[in-house]
């Protein structure tokens, strides 16, 4: 049987999404069983597969010329929502915005990235990205309670559980976050939820650092191109009290700014106390959003001028400068991740045990893994 014939029944029209890479073979599994079969076939035929959620984080990591694109758009079901337990289990192709809208109806939130666009739960997890509210609620990783992975050779494995506290076995759910599918495609996940605060405000202030020092555990403090906003949530009395001490312009609700856009997108990560210093070191013309107190800076520029020096400094602080989007040529001029982290040997040994034919996103991770 030809490869095309082997995959024929999984080729579905719903794959016609914008931004997809050039690839003759595009499939969209409708069930996790189908995903298992697809990856088993991909392993059998030694294909390189890219997994496509909403396409929001495809700019991360090494470039791949795929033989196969697996869209998760049809794996988008709600599996289990226990509002009184504050847990929700969804298939990975569900869009973050759909999940958060659904949860908001019951006053709950998954605290995923605030302006997710088309991003899916699986994509956000696989790329290991978090929203600005991580300042108060911790990163996305802190909310993943259970995960169902389909390994590169098509085995479905489950780890963790649908309870908010669990140490039964190794923490594969956390490891899956930021793994870019190298241990398996995230097919389904259970997330811990938070109650939405009864009162939410956004306060624009002149001095973000001062606000960070003044406010008591704010939801987030984000500075964009010199203008800082403090996000607060809680009871009305608590929020009112905090607003008074901040001395800024208040609007009701959380008002998030779109990320800076440009030819090249960057994620600069430094220890929280080095955030100001990082902002000051951004090459001229770079636009940015910085999570004060967190050390995560999203930036955009017209080119990579000055990036090498900034990366060297960030790495010397224990951080990184990562390319998140840009023209293909940039990726051959500059490693998208920078200096690979220690522990590559164990990472390699792990990946070969979960994806022995190296099917899913090969070469996407630091060190060419």
């Amino acid at each position, binding site marked *: 049987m030809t490869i095309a014939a082997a995959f024929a029944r999984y080729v579905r029209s719903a794959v016609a999404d914008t931004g997809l890479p050039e690839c003759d073979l595009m499939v969209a599994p409708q069930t996790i069983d189908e995903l298992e079969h697809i990856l088993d076939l991909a392993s059998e035929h030694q294909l390189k597969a890219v997994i496509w959620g909403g396409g929001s984080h495809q700019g991360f990591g090494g470039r791949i010329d795929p033989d196969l694109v697996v869209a998760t758009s049809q794996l988008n079901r709600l599996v289990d929502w226990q509002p*009184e337990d504050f*847990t929700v289990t969804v298939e990975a192709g569900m869009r973050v915005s759909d999940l958060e809208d659904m949860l908001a109806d019951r006053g709950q939130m998954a605290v995923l990235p605030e302006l997710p666009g088309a991003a899916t739960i699986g994509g956000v997890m696989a790329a290991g990205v*978090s929203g600005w509210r*991580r300042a108060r609620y911790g*990163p996305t990783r*802190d909310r993943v309670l259970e995960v169902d992975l389909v390994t590169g050779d*098509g*085995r479905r494995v489950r*780890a963790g*559980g*649908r*309870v*908010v*506290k*669990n*140490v*039964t*076995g*190794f*923490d*594969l759910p*956390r*490891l899956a976050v*930021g793994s870019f599918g190298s*241990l398996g495609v995230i097919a389904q996940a259970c997330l811990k939820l938070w*109650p939405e605060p009864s009162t939410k405000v956004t306060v624009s202030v002149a001095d973000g650092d001062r606000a960070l020092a003044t406010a008591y*555990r704010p939801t987030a403090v984000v500075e964009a191109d010199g203008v800082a906003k403090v996000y607060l949530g*809680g009871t009305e*009395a*608590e929020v*009112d009290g905090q607003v008074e001490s901040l001395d800024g312009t208040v609007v009701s609700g959380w008002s998030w700014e779109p990320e800076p856009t440009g030819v090249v997108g960057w994620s600069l*990560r*430094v*220890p*929280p*106390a080095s955030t100001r210093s990082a902002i000051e070191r951004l090459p001229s013309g770079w636009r940015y959003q910085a999570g004060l107190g967190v050390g*995560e800076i999203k930036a955009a520029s017209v080119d990579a001028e000055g990036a090498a020096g900034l990366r060297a400094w*960030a790495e010397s602080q*224990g*951080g*990184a400068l*990562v390319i998140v989007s840009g023209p293909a040529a940039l990726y051959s001029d500059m490693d998208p*991740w920078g200096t*690979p*982290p*220690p*522990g*590559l040997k*164990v*990472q390699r040994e792990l990946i*070969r*045990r*979960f994806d*022995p*034919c*190296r099917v899913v996103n090969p070469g996407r991770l*630091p*060190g*060419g*893994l």
Partner: protein
Amino acid sequence: MTLIGDLVEILGPDRVLSEPLERYLYGTDGGVARGEVIVVVLPETAGEVSDVVKAAKRHGSPIVPRGAGTGLAGGAAPAVPSVVVSLTNMKDIEIDLGNRTAWVGPGVINLDLSKLTRSSGFHFAPDPSSQSACTIGGNVANNSGGPHCLAEGTTTSHVLAVEIVTADGEIVLLGGPAPDPIGLDLRSVVVGSEGLLGIITRALVKLTPNPLAVRTILAGFATMEDAVATSSGIVARGVVPAALEIMDQKMTRAVENFVGAGFPIDAGAILLAEVAGHPAAVEAEARLVEQVANENHVTSLRVAADEVERAKLWLGRKSAFGAVAQLAPDYYLHDTVVPRTQLVATMQKIYEIAERHGVLMLNVFHAGDGNLHPLVAFDASVEGQLDIVHAAMEEVAKVCIEAGGALSGEHGIGLEKRDLMPLLYNEADLDAQARLREAFDPDGLFNPQKVLPAGSRCADLGRPIPTGAWL
């Protein structure tokens, strides 16, 4: 040279313990399991740990790393004769208030870190009941919890980096001070790995700002159902208190007699609720706690008037396990977790199990996150008693899993629950766990025969792993 000779060469004679009594003392932890110790070593640096690992590996001796030995699942009790590496001498602390972090040696006592940072306005959030004795290395290895993990998360949410010595004796730093370290997040899987993936020689932990205000409320109820309904009701109203702890009457009486915390001994169950944070929020949340308690037929309600009274209430909670010594010479403390909505039904079944087996059971638990701690007081010197206790506890585990729960919320799997793992995970799931272990430690040098039952690694699942050059 002999293994002990090699170890003495690395550490000198004073930090290599090989007398029978010394070996006996290190053969167990806080639980009921006991194993055989070849020799105990007390390294002081990562370099020494590395040399010890290499020497043990050369001699084919397994290694069991160990903190203060307060664990209850047999994690530090060797399953096979082993070299025990005690990390309690590694106590360096380096505080970085700017980044709200601290580098700590694995031997630092949990509470000591919070004491040291208190005057600066910070603390280390994970607070196991054993926090005045347990080490942070042990907390990291077990992903320990504690009452205040309800709002702040367990240890894993507070660890930014770990330095480990691998099974090859290599010293590797995983994670770092910046958010989202690149590459696979090995740090997250070393946390909670119960000494199977590497020996933790240093950890970078987060410091949490102390709350501006705290209110601790003690509520008594006629029945366990009312206490649980109150706890669940508070969470369902969208309040995440700092802690929500419940004790049944037997436990309340044992504790009251032991430390005199002021608990109402006529109550069927008591709820200890703590709200913390901004003063205005604390006030509103305390009102809500009282309101929900009233809706659920509270019989007595008291708000700690000051820090002294609050400390006394918490002393009562954290003395629960010690208090059991009044009732019987031994105790078996279980640790399971269920979805919060299943608490009432599960507690009923657990009491039925205790009754059927004729064991003396007391209950104290983290109600806010559904983490149960049924405790059986017994006399291990009476033949057959431990078997009865084990049988009862296995049934408890099954009931919790049937309710959608898990085997352990914070104590770990160790030896005690290893063979129950197939209750929760199928062949492919366990094989994945075994593969993960194999990637770190292919020869099973570290803490062998723990966590995963024999035969977890299943050679015929999936496609063969290529040998030689790859990637």
